[in-house]
């Protein structure tokens, strides 16, 4: 579904990602591990058209999408869900969700997706008319994921969905990710130390200093003591 060939990304003159190649097949959950500040977020953003300077090739269902801006990509079904949430603070939960369905391809499905999202996150339905800025950290995280789902995406890049959440909410996030994936949405997730999410993964990549330092299945990853200890938490 997504195929990346020797991707490089830059912030001004800083070379963040170096020659990354990766493939995510339809229906898979692929998890990216790695220390903070080594380019995981930049990698997801590069795929979703949120980094200006990239080289290499990105294919989406055989179509070359390298260099397309996020507004085009969201319309094609590729959506980024930010680690720091990036909500609209002075808007209500409902308005935030409606803006999630801004793209042309999502508009006709707005009502259906809203129902879907509310059944997935009953808490959001109860707080529909509350301002996003008044929500707790966990609720805001749920809203960010829900807003991403409103785009009617076929491919979601989710950046550390359980970062900073307490253990029971982490499990809740894992349940939701499983649910999203079972609805046929392909997922590329940056995450660490959340066993429930690790269990869902079809494939792992480790990103260190802007390069892929490990690539393999769950079994491969479990066989690697270094990985197991540092990132997996299994």
């Amino acid at each position, binding site marked *: 579904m997504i195929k990346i060939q020797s991707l490089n990304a830059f912030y001004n003159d800083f070379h963040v990602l170096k020659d990354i190649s990766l493939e995510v097949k339809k229906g898979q959950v692929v998890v990216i591990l790695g220390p903070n500040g080594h380019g995981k977020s930049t990698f997801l953003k590069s795929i*979703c058209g*949120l980094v200006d300077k990239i080289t290499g090739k990105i294919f989406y269902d055989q179509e070359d999408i390298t260099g397309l*801006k*996020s*507004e085009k*990509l*969201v*319309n094609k079904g590729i*959506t*980024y*869900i*930010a680690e720091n949430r*990036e*909500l*609209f*603070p*002075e*808007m209500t939960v409902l*308005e935030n969700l*409606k*803006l*999630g369905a*801004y*793209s042309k391809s999502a508009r006709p499905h707005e009502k259906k997706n809203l129902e879907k999202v509310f059944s997935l996150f009953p808490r959001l339905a109860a707080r529909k008319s509350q301002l996003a800025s008044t929500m707790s950290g966990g609720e805001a995280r749920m809203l960010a994921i829900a*807003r991403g789902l409103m*785009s009617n995406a076929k491919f979601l890049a989710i950046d550390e969905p359980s970062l900073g959440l307490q253990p029971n909410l982490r499990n809740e996030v894992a349940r939701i990710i499983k649910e999203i994936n079972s609805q046929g949405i392909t997922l590329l997730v940056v995450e660490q130390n959340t066993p429930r999410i690790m269990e869902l993964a079809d494939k792992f990549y480790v990103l260190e200093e802007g390069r892929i330092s490990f690539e393999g299945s769950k079994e491969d990853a479990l066989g690697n003591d270094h990985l197991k200890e540092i990132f997996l938490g299994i």
Partner: protein
Amino acid sequence: MFIEIIDVIISGLINGSVYALMAVGLTLIYGVSKAFNFAYGSLYSLGGYIAFLLFSLAWINNYLLVFCLAAPILLVIGFFLEKLLVAPLRKRDDWEIKVMMITLGLALFLDNSFQVVFGARMKSLPTMLEGSFELGEFILSYQDVAIFIFSIGGILLFRWFLNNTRTGMSVRAVAQNPEGAQIVGIPKEFVFAATFAISTVMVGMGGILLAQKYFITPTGGWDILVKAWVITAFGGMGSIKGSLYAAFIVGMLEAFVGWHFGMTWTLIALFAVLLTTLAVRPQGLMGKWG
């Protein structure tokens, strides 16, 4: 005395309402794109001159028609000004300064073009409505009432647009979180141009409304630019609500200072109030830090 004070209050309310219409537009551009528009005053004059041209056409004889024609003209002009002058700068470093310079240049260009095309002499627009009516002991001119109604109507229409249309929602989204707006797929470039266009309509309409009372001159916009900036800074940069309050405060202040001390003191009083406010609350009345 009492009647005089009521008259002053009415005059402050009416000017305040037009200031509000214009300052909200300026705040909008700043809030959304963080760009300073120094040509704002000249766009005010542009509105007046467009109305003047429209009125010179034989078949145009009322303000409603002029508004309906001037609004789309101003919208298109604003949109392309942003696309041609401001948008190309945005990709560069320290574009904020460059935008200030280029809009300043645009202001000088427009003002001089007005002078070449229309001459340096004042132009006036016909009165919107003749006559007046009595409300107890007060006399209100229909013109003032109409100006007030159109300004408030414009602001309400703008509010409706922001809250209820998809483009309006995307404008608010970009103002509140540009990153987030990009993530949900809002085309930022279009939103920047759209806000510039909308604010051009708002200030241009203000120009048309006030031209019947204060004439149109090639450099008349500078006064408005200063006032609009004072209001924007006073209300809090980027806060629409703050601009609304500030506009009426400035309108009232002007009216009272003008009545009691003479018109020459109004600008001094304005800046005194602005500086005092900013000394106590650097973020303005309703502004936020950061």
